């Protein structure tokens, strides 16, 4: 089995680009990834591309060939859709393809365009990641589903809105130096607590924003990097994916995310490491409670213990285990179909030492990325390690 390296990463600034087409956003991310990698486009043998709601937002299906054109590559191209985990599964397929020896170079990532739609249409668009018959028709929105999980969590384990506000304040603080982040302003715990409700117990600053953006990664085999003198010090050493029942009501636990447990277990086993070896994490904090659930599924905290992680300063930039140094989905932004690729781009920069927040993890060697779809009916976890 071939080892897999991240040769280059590219992102657009996450934020509001209502006039920019999806193809232009992905073209920008890909251009930056190729510049970062120093790998020629003609060596790309496969494009794995994530997108969730392009058919609604841009009236554009069949996006993979369009994005191959935009990136300037000519190779088999496939779009992956797994709601907010779309780019995570796209990257996973690139990793598996390179490992299997089917390709030496793959381009992976994703794009989402959202701010060109009115907010109520985005709300309805995001809700299609839930079960239409038994959830959406019953009034469940995307924030509403996580609100149901938050209430169940507080009931099962304790915790408060204030604990969640510390997650928001932490991730907003982390986003301040990140040039790709949508919101680069600090938000205090008090401001988060006083913000208007979206779906109680979740309020405005518990929720990620509506975001346009794209991510791209050049994934190569270790042999390709060596033969072509490509500087690719970060390896993808573990990948795992999990699936759960679609509707929240059908899950074994309303306050836990078993699909992410499965994805994490598989990724750790694949990498041959345990959660105690993780130095830094990028997790899917579409809502503050989601970061708590992610930390517990990743085995970084026991069930019921993740709620205090930000409040107690363990997961802050200066804590023992910094989480979401990019700003997370919460402050960096969440262009749904691009997010999974963006997390790995940020982790790669953090581990290489060229991220504005790398100083907080100067000695880090192992990073983990957690990307979730819907209310975690899908989850993808990747382990990244400094190989050189």
């Amino acid at each position, binding site marked *: 089995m071939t080892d897999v390296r991240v040769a280059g990463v590219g992102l657009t600034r996450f934020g509001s680009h209502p006039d920019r087409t999806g193809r232009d956003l992905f073209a920008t991310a890909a251009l930056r990834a190729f510049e970062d990698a120093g790998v020629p486009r003609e060596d790309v043998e496969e494009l794995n591309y994530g997108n969730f709601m392009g058919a609604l937002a841009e009236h554009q299906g069949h996006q993979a060939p369009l994005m191959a054109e935009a990136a300037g590559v000519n190779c088999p191209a496939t779009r992956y859709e797994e709601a907010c985990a779309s780019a995570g599964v796209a990257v996973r397929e690139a990793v598996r393809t390179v490992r299997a020896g089917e390709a030496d170079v793959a381009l992976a990532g994703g794009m989402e365009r959202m701010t060109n739609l009115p907010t109520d249409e985005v709300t309805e668009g995001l809700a299609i990641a839930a079960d239409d018959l038994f959830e959406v028709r019953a*009034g469940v929105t995307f924030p509403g589903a996580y609100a149901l999980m938050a209430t169940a969590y507080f009931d099962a384990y304790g915790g408060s809105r204030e604990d969640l506000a510390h997650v928001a304040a932490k991730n907003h603080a982390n986003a301040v130096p990140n040039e790709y982040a949508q919101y680069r302003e600090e938000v205090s715990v008090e401001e988060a607590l006083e913000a208007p409700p979206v779906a109680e*117990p979740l309020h405005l600053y518990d929720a990620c924003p509506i975001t346009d953006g794209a991510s791209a990664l050049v994934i190569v085999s270790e042999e390709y990097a060596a033969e072509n003198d490509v500087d690719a010090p970060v390896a993808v050493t573990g990948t795992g994916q999990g699936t759960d029942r679609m509707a929240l009501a059908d899950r074994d636990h*309303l306050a836990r995310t078993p699909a992410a447990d499965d994805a994490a277990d598989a990724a750790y086993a694949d990498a041959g490491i345990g959660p105690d070896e993780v130095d830094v994490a990028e997790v899917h904090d579409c809502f503050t409670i989601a970061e708590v659930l992610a930390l517990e599924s990743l085995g970084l905290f026991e069930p019921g213990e993740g709620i205090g992680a930000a409040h107690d300063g363990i997961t802050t930039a200066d804590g023992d285990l910094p989480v979401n140094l990019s700003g997370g989905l919460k402050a960096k932004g969440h262009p749904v179909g691009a997010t999974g690729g963006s997390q790995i781009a940020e982790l790669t920069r953090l581990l290489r030492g060229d991220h504005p927040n790398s100083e907080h993890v100067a000695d880090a060697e192992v990073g983990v990325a957690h990307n979730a779809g819907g209310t975690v009916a899908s989850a993808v976890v990747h382990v990244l390690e400094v190989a050189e």
Partner: protein
Amino acid sequence: MSDDAPAPADNAGYDEWLDALADGEGYALVCPDGHGSLPPRRVCPECGAAALAEEPLAETGSVETHSVVHVAGPRFADDTPYANAIVDFGPVRLTGVLRGVEPGTDAVAIGDRVAVGVEERDTDGEPLVAFRPTDGK
């Protein structure tokens, strides 16, 4: 809605289930191993068993979690704010809107008993799974 000639089914299995629920005859599909699910199903989603029996829902269920939605999509625009709940009926849990209470985080408590039926969305009159407290609250 069941008094008139039945509307043509848009979602066979689900539409019949919703009509039954509206008539007070809601059911779960239960496999020989006791796993519950909701229609339409060809096999049990937990174990793949094909023998699925319709088992009547209990008259009341127990609230497992709840929320209050303030920002909704166009189909619920005139319903906000509204409370959502997931309620345990034994072999299945149902998700619906909580009616008969002021929407608020203290409108209902986990463990409260509620009855289930079908009511109309305020926004467009479409049918909706609805819960109402049974303890006079």
